C-alpha cells in the first residue's frame, strides 16, 4: 500500500521476522528434546503481525502480550539471550525461571507481560493507557489478543472503558482463525472482529496480517492518530498459525484443519512473500538476505549457548519474589 520502502526498513523487518521464525523453530527443537520443560505456543506463521506492529512503535510504548507471546517480545526489543535463559529455567532468565514461556515480562522494553489467560492482558493494557492519560505522557499501549480472546467478557469491558475514557490504546487482534480447535467460522457470526469497534464508539479496521508492510504502515498511521487524538483503535490482522495450538498438539490427532488449508497459508508465508517482493523490487540482493539468515542463526545459537551455560536457580529460590516485603507465608516446617 505504500509506494516506497527504504532498504534499511526492509532489511529490519525481514531480519525481525526471520528472528521470530528461527527462534520458534529452535524452541520446538528444545521442547522436543525436553531441554525446555513443559510446552510452548509457537508464533510460526504470524510473524508479520508482531514485527509490523512493534516496528512502528517507540521504545517507551507499551505492550501486553498473550500465551503466544515470543514474537511480540522479540519484536518489541526483548533480548533472546534472556528469553532462552527463561525458557531453560535459568536464574538469569528474564523472570528468574519463575515465569517460563507464558509469563515473560520486561518493563524496560515496554513488555508488561505475556499472559497465560486468554484476554486477561486486555484490561491491563487499558490500565496502562489510563496512567499515560493521567500522567499526560505521549506513549501508547498495544494490547495483543486473539480471535479467541475477542469473545471473553473482560475484553468487552476493557474496550468499553478505553472508549469512554478516551485512552491511547490500540487493540491488535491477531485473528489466526482458531481458538485451539475452534474455528472463527463457528465462534463468530460476523466476518470481521474489527466491526465490533463500532459498538464501542471507536474506529476499527481489518487488514492482511500476512503482509508485514501492510501491518507496519497501518500501525504507523494508527499510532499517530491515537497519539494525537487519544482515542482507542481496534486493528484486526488476519493471520494463520502453522503449528498446533501448542508444541505437542500433533500427537493428539485433533485434525481440525485440513492439510490443504495449512499448505495454502504456508504459500502465503509472510517471510517468503516479503523477501520475494523486496528482491523483485530490487530493494536488496539475495546475498544480503542470506547474510541476515546466517546472522540470525548464529545469534540464536549463541543465545541458546548462553542460556545453557547460565546458572540454574536454587530450588529454594521458589520462595522468593512473592512479595515486596519479606515473605511470611513460608510453611513453618517441611520446606526450610
Amino acid at each position: 500500500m505504500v509506494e516506497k520502502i527504504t532498504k534499511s526498513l526492509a532489511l529490519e523487518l525481514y531480519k525481525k521476522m526471520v528472528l521470530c521464525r528461527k527462534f520458534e523453530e529452535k524452541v520446538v527443537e528444545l521442547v522436543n528434546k525436553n531441554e525446555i520443560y513443559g510446552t510452548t505456543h509457537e508464533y510460526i506463521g504470524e510473524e508479520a503481525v508482531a514485527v509490523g506492529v512493534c516496528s512502528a512503535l517507540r521504545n517507551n510504548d507499551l505492550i501486553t502480550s498473550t500465551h503466544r507471546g515470543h514474537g511480540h517480545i522479540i519484536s518489541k526489543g526483548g533480548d533472546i539471550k534472556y528469553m532462552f535463559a527463561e525458557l531453560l529455567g535459568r536464574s538469569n532468565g528474564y523472570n528468574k525461571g519463575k515465569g517460563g514461556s507464558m509469563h515473560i515480562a520486561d518493563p524496560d522494553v515496554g513488555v508488561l507481560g505475556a499472559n497465560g489467560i486468554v484476554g486477561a492482558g486486555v484490561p491491563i493494557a487499558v490500565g496502562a493507557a489510563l496512567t499515560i492519560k493521567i500522567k499526560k505522557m505521549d506513549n501508547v499501549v498495544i494490547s495483543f489478543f486473539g480471535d479467541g480472546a475477542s469473545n471473553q467478557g473482560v475484553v468487552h469491558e476493557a474496550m468499553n472503558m478505553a472508549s469512554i475514557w478516551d485512552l491511547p490504546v490500540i487493540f491488535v487482534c491477531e485473528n489466526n482463525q482458531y481458538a485451539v480447535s475452534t474455528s472463527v467460522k463457528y465462534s463468530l457470526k460476523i466476518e470481521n472482529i474489527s466491526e465490533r469497534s463500532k459498538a464501542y464508539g471507536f474506529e476499527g479496521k481489518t487488514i492482511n496480517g500476512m503482509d508485514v508492510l501492510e501491518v507496519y504502515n497501518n500501525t504507523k498511521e494508527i499510532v499517530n492518530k491515537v497519539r494525537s487524538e487519544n482515542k482507542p483503535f481496534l486493528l484486526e490482522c488476519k493471520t494463520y498459525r502453522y503449528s498446533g495450538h501448542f508444541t505437542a498438539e500433533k500427537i493428539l490427532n485433533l485434525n481440525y484443519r485440513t492439510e490443504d488449508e495449512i499448505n495454502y497459508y504456508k504459500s502465503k508465508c509472510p517471510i517468503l512473500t516479503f523477501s520475494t517482493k523486496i528482491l523483485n523490487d530490487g530493494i536488496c540482493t539475495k546475498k544480503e538476505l542470506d547474510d541476515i539468515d546466517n546472522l540470525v542463526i548464529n545469534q540464536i545459537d549463541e543465545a541458546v549457548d548462553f542460556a545453557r551455560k547460565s546458572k540454574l536457580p536454587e530450588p529454594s529460590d521458589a520462595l522468593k519474589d512473592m512479595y515486596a516485603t519479606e515473605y511470611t507465608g513460608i510453611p513453618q516446617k517441611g520446606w526450610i
Partner: protein
Amino acid sequence: MRSIYYLKAISEALLNEMKINPDVIVIGEDVRYSLRGITKGFIDIFGPDRVIDTPISEAGLTGVGTGAALTGLRPVLEFQICEFIFFAFDQLVDQAQKLRYMSGGKLKAPVTYLISSSGARGGMAGQHSDNPYPYLLHSGMKTVMPSTPYDAKGLLVSAIRDDDPVAVFLPVNSLGTKGDVPEEQYTIPLGKGEIKKEGKDITVVATGHLVKIALEAAEDLKSSGISVEVYDPRTLLPLDKELLFKSVKKTGRVVIFDDSNWTCGFAAEISAIIAEECFTYLKSPIRRVTRADVPIPFNAQMESFVLPDKEKLIRAILKNF
C-alpha cells in the same frame, strides 16, 4: 482525642493519601457520588482523572487497576459489595497477585482493593452477605480487616503505601462504630496483630466486627471468674503468628471467632497452625465459632442462626472449663 466513625476514618485515610501522593487514584462503581460515603466530595477536590467511576465491569476495572499500578499509579479500587470480587477473580488472584512472582520481581502492582462492606448486614440474603477473604488468603494476597476506626485508618494508609496488592475488608457491622482516631496521618504496619484485652485463662482469636463482640463476651465472663484474652490479628496475611502463639502458650486454651465459612476458612487455618506450634501447651481442644457453610438465608431468624454471635462464643468458651 476526637472520636469518629469507622467509615470516616477510612475516608480520611484515603483523602490524606490522595493529597500527599498524586499517584493515588480511586477507581470503582459509584465513587463520584459515593454509595457508602468513603469518597464523598472527592470528585470536587481531585477531579475525574483521580476519582474514576467505571461502568458495571468488575473484572475489567480490576484489570485496569493492575495496569495502572504496573505503570506507576497507586490505584485504590472500591468494591461496594464484597461478592463483586468473584467476578474479578482471575484479575485478582491470577493476574495482580501473581505478576510479581511470575515476573521474577520485575513487575509490581501496588493496588489496594477496598472491599467496603463485607459480611451480613441483615436481610441482604445470599449474594450480599459473604465474607470472602479466605479465597484471597488462599491465593496469598495480603489481606487486612480492621476492627476499629483507629486500626482502619492506620491500616488503610499502610495498604495504599505497600508495593503489593492488598485487600482491605471493611466489616459492614463495623462501619457505624465510633472510636478515637488522631487527625494526622499515621500507619499501622501490615502483619502486626494486637491484644485488644489481656487475660490469662483463654485466648479468643477474633476478627473484624467480632472483636467488639469478643470484648463484650470477655466482660460478661468476668463474673464467672474466666479471664479472656482477645487477640485481633488485624492483618490476616501476613499473620502475626508470634503474638498469637505467645498468647495461646500463655492461656493454653483457644477459641477462634471468625465470620467466614467453617471449611477451609480463616479459623481452620488458625486452628491448624496452633495445633502445629502450640500443641503441648493446650489444655483443651481448639474450638471454632464461625458461620455455617450455607449461603446467608434471608429470614432474620435463620440468618442469626447461621452467624457467629456472642452466645455461641460464650458457649464455646465455657466448654473449655
